[in-house]
């Protein structure tokens, strides 16, 4: 869920199109479900795999591709935390701030990271490398405080660890 005015749409300034491989994946997705709409979440994940976020162009593309009204896609994007309709960095970092992680300093780590990288919720760092997102429970409380760097869970971490790990990211 991105925290901007819902009327703003973000453009990436170029038309969007699935790569051939992804188009094939899309066709494969369609075989899994009994209707096209059900494939929306996987398709949006696929778009994000390709270009990290969901610009207006991608929404229009998916809308035409799947014959789903644009507003329905926007509703879905705004509803889920892991769909981004704002530009994000190359690496997505989720910091858990739920109960157990907060007990062990998850919030301090998040605040510390924001300060260290001089950025804000979801805003990519100036080099476009990292976007930080504060998340509710990541489901890894045994490794509290934990983080999710791209698709990998790391934890327990402290701020210094976390900064080191993020600095290593491409």
């Amino acid at each position, binding site marked *: 869920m991105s925290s901007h005015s819902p009327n703003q749409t973000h453009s990436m300034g170029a038309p969007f199109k699935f790569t051939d491989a992804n188009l094939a994946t899309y066709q494969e997705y369609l075989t*899994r479900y*009994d*209707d096209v*709409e*059900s*494939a*929306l*979440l*996987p398709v*949006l*994940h696929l778009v994000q795999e390709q270009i990290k976020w969901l610009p207006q162009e991608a929404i229009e593309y998916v809308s035409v591709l799947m014959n*789903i009204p644009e507003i*329905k896609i926007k*509703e*879905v994007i705004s*509803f*889920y*935390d*892991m*769909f981004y309709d704002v530009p994000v960095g190359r690496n997505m970092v*989720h910091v858990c*701030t*739920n*109960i*157990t992680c*907060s*007990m062990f300093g998850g919030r301090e780590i998040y605040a510390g990271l924001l300060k260290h990288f001089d950025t804000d919720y979801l805003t990519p760092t100036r080099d476009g490398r990292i976007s930080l997102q504060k*998340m*509710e*429970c*990541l*489901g*890894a*409380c*045994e490794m*509290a405080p934990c983080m*999710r760097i791209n*698709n*990998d*869970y790391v934890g327990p971490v402290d701020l210094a660890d976390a900064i080191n790990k993020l600095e290593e990211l491409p």
Partner: protein
Amino acid sequence: MERIMEKDTANYKDYSLLSYHHIPGVHNLEVFERAGGYEMMKACFDKDPEAIKEVVKASGLRGRGGAGFPTGVKWGFFTKDRNAQKYLLCNADESEPGTFKDRYLVEKNPHILIEGMIISAWALGTQKGYIYIRGEFQQQAVILERALKEAYAKGYLGKNILGKGFNFDLYVHRGAGAYICGEETGMISSLEGKKGQPKLKPPFPAIKGYRGLPTMVNNVESLAAVPWIMRFGADEYKKWGTEKSAGTKLFSISGDVNKPGVIEVPLGTTLKEIIEVHCGGMRNGNKLKAVVPGGSSAPVFNHDESYSVKMDYEDVASKGSMLGSGAIIVLDETRNIGDLMKWTLEFYHHESCGQCTPCREGTGWLESIFKRRETGKASKADIDTLDKTAASMRGQTICALADAAAMPAQGMIKSFRSELEAYIMTPTNTGKK
């Protein structure tokens, strides 16, 4: 490796769900099968589906997702028309704060779930199934996809399974980060490619679910318990646990204990035993202050309650809380209940789907009331307002999220009122973020 070749079944008797977990590489179908996996699936195809349902019903297995509704009874509501189009959904969207048992189960042994789902599908006569896994569990989804591929290659999934004329397709569906998708109708909405907003009940999913067709939604743990029950029978399963809470349960323990993690113990095990024996006691030898016994939506237990409670559905409920998903968060004396309250309320504010008014506005307001200290407007009466507001949210909404937000708030107020009063009267300088 030797032991595995011998079909080491010793662990079956100690665990139902984690019985394969000591075997290295059990996430590979080959290893799993050598250890006795998929045997029950093959055996079940010769059984009458209704008989399977009966066994599950007799076992007293209760839904492990949180509500604890008997799985067998739920299956009984499902249409018996085997030709009708219907779905089996596995709820792997475990997003209740403190819970990570399903992740652990799926990560270590995806095949036990798949086997359980195939048996359940046979019993229920569903042709298609989806494992709805939360979006954050990308790696676990990959593990599942791989396991599914193996099962397809073996002919355990797909058309005409093992020549029995039974078709069952199983797919992984990734969520995208919304707590409410853990609610069964929310999950169905999400699977339909919509916002994951819960649907009005009635009609229940068993009658009208995914795409308006009968849909059975079960938790990972419930489905994964099915093969064991089929192997050893309902009576054997009932030997575990208490009369009304049969079997074993996975508990995810986190917080101030020495060994946080997932354990499988029979229901009815005391919380004291879980903490002291299975989790190696309190961290740094600190005194226990409070325990969240069933995920963040369960009211907290104070020190005394924690040491006297037995972890089964009835005993926890009789002490004013709920077993929920079995997520135990342990807090020691150094922790402030105010912080716990703040985090809990923030969580529910963030996760309310925004559909029903009491929940949409209420969750936000609970947080605002509790955070009045940040704007210097707090007063002791706020705790009463909070209590009253929380009470007025309960039972008013489509799903249980409003209750889930209100119950812990009320629970904490009941057990730790003076501490919360002190907390909200302490001004902070964190007014601006």
